[in-house]
């Protein structure tokens, strides 16, 4: 629907978008708060209506060069440009996070208290990461690429992996508390967990390898029990929760779409 532009047209489009955004913000500020609410409600309703109609209206084949099996209706062609509005709105908030972090850590650094060292580490890391990444984008030579890889792959990714691996230790301490026999439910949980764990490992399966593979007594094999626990009671419980969650999410979406939501950041009914 929209085609990319180059040259001076690109600058005109960017300038036009900026002016339109500033005007929209200024107009919203001028509108009284009560009327502003109706503007927001109307925009939310129109946005929701578009996606609801696009989803529910009958579809027909709409082959595209990259997806020959694509189907859609007359609204499908606008999906991409309308979907692009979300990252544009998100773009306005990008700087907010950095500003908030800088304010919090800047004040700590100035106070020179106990956590000043952490705040200094934050500023040094942020500046180093930004500088190296910009350098790598501007001059993609071997030194800059390696520096960026060192900080990103060698530093940040490894720190992420370290935090992820810590979960293993937390699982042990959480499992210890969960499996303590304090009630009937905790005992059932312990027995079920032991059966599933035994069914997952070779030693567990070896313990019951003498039981028949087929027939009625095959349930004595720990891996058969494990499969039954996971596929029958566990799956049933998860699906029941998923049903409730699905309807709950639908109810909230309807309330927000139709402007019926109340409480906290929405209007109170008193």
């Amino acid at each position, binding site marked *: 629907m929209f085609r990319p532009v180059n040259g001076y047209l690109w600058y005109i489009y960017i300038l036009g978008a900026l002016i339109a955004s500033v005007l929209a913000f200024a107009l919203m500020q001028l509108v009284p708060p009560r009327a502003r609410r109706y503007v927001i409600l109307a925009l939310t309703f129109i946005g929701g209506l578009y996606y609801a109609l*696009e*989803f*529910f209206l009958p*579809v027909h084949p709409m082959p595209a060069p990259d997806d020959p099996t694509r*189907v*859609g*209706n007359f609204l499908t062609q606008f*999906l991409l440009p309308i979907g692009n509005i*979300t990252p544009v*709105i*998100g773009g306005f*908030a*990008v*700087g*907010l*996070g950095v500003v*908030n*972090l800088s*304010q*919090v850590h800047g*004040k700590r650094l100035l106070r020179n208290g106990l*956590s000043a060292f952490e705040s200094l580490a934050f500023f040094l890391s942020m500046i180093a990461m930004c500088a190296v990444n910009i350098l790598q984008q501007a001059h993609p030579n071997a030194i800059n690429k390696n520096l960026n890889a060192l900080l990103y792959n060698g530093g*940040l990714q490894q*720190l*992420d992996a370290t*935090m*992820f691996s*810590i*979960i293993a230790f*937390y*699982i042990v301490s*959480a*499992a210890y*508390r*969960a499996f303590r026999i304090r009630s009937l439910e905790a005992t059932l949980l312990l027995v079920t967990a032991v059966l599933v764990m035994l069914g997952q490992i070779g030693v567990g399966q070896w313990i019951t390898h003498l039981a028949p593979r087929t027939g009625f007594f095959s349930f004595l094999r720990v891996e058969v029990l494990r499969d039954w626990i996971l596929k029958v009671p566990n799956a049933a419980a*998860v699906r*029941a*929760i*998923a*049903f*409730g*969650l699905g*309807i*709950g*999410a*639908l*109810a*909230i*979406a*309807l*309330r*927000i779409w139709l402007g*019926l*939501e*109340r*409480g*906290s*950041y929405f209007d*109170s*009914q008193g």
Partner: protein
Amino acid sequence: MEHANTAVREILIPISIIIVAAILIARRRSLFIRRIQGLTAIDEAIGRATEMGRPMVCLTGLSSGIDINALQALSIITYIIRSSARFGARAICPVSDPQMLAVTEEAVRDAYTEAGRPELYNREDIRFLSNRQFAFAAAVAGVIWRERAAACFLFGYYYAESLIIAETGQQVGAIQVAGTPTTTQIPFFIAACDYVIIGDEFYAASAYLSREPTLLGSLVGQDICKGILLLLVLIGITLSTVAPVLGSLFRQFLMKS
């Protein structure tokens, strides 16, 4: 992009109509809502934080951008802040998304103002930490440790970091209330938290806490829809069980005649 098939159209549209109808009916009638233990525990946790003079840590999850889970979590968090403001308890709200930062700041400031204690609002307590999953988890764990949180409220959408955050709260002895729509993380919260709001109780929380007629009506509508779906499941199970038997009987009848 996915589109609705006939079954989705036949189920989703009537369900939506039932929910909206229940909301409209509830505006004229008072409705009963059963006690949800996890939500009742919120007041206990606020009381504990007040008595100990230590802060509460309130999270809205790791939703990317502003979605219904983050908004629902924020709705619960603002209730907590309104309630705690009366006693002067401090609430720290780390957020993982820059868009949520602006919305959270606004909602928390409004909550303090509504409670009649606008002076308690401290912008530094609404902190953007990181939008990277484990960096956020590490930072939240650090906040819980350093501030020696007395209560942790973990609402919203979580991934694998749920256990890191909940276990840290457990280690500092904080009373913890969690609620998430992420079914894979519910077991971790059950193991590490004192109270957990399971499944659609998470979406019922704002109705339970605010007692707004619209939200209560929505909740009743949801329950009616769940009843209808349950009935459809039972009919489906019965039909698929008896269909082969009835089919063979019908074939025998046809062959005889």
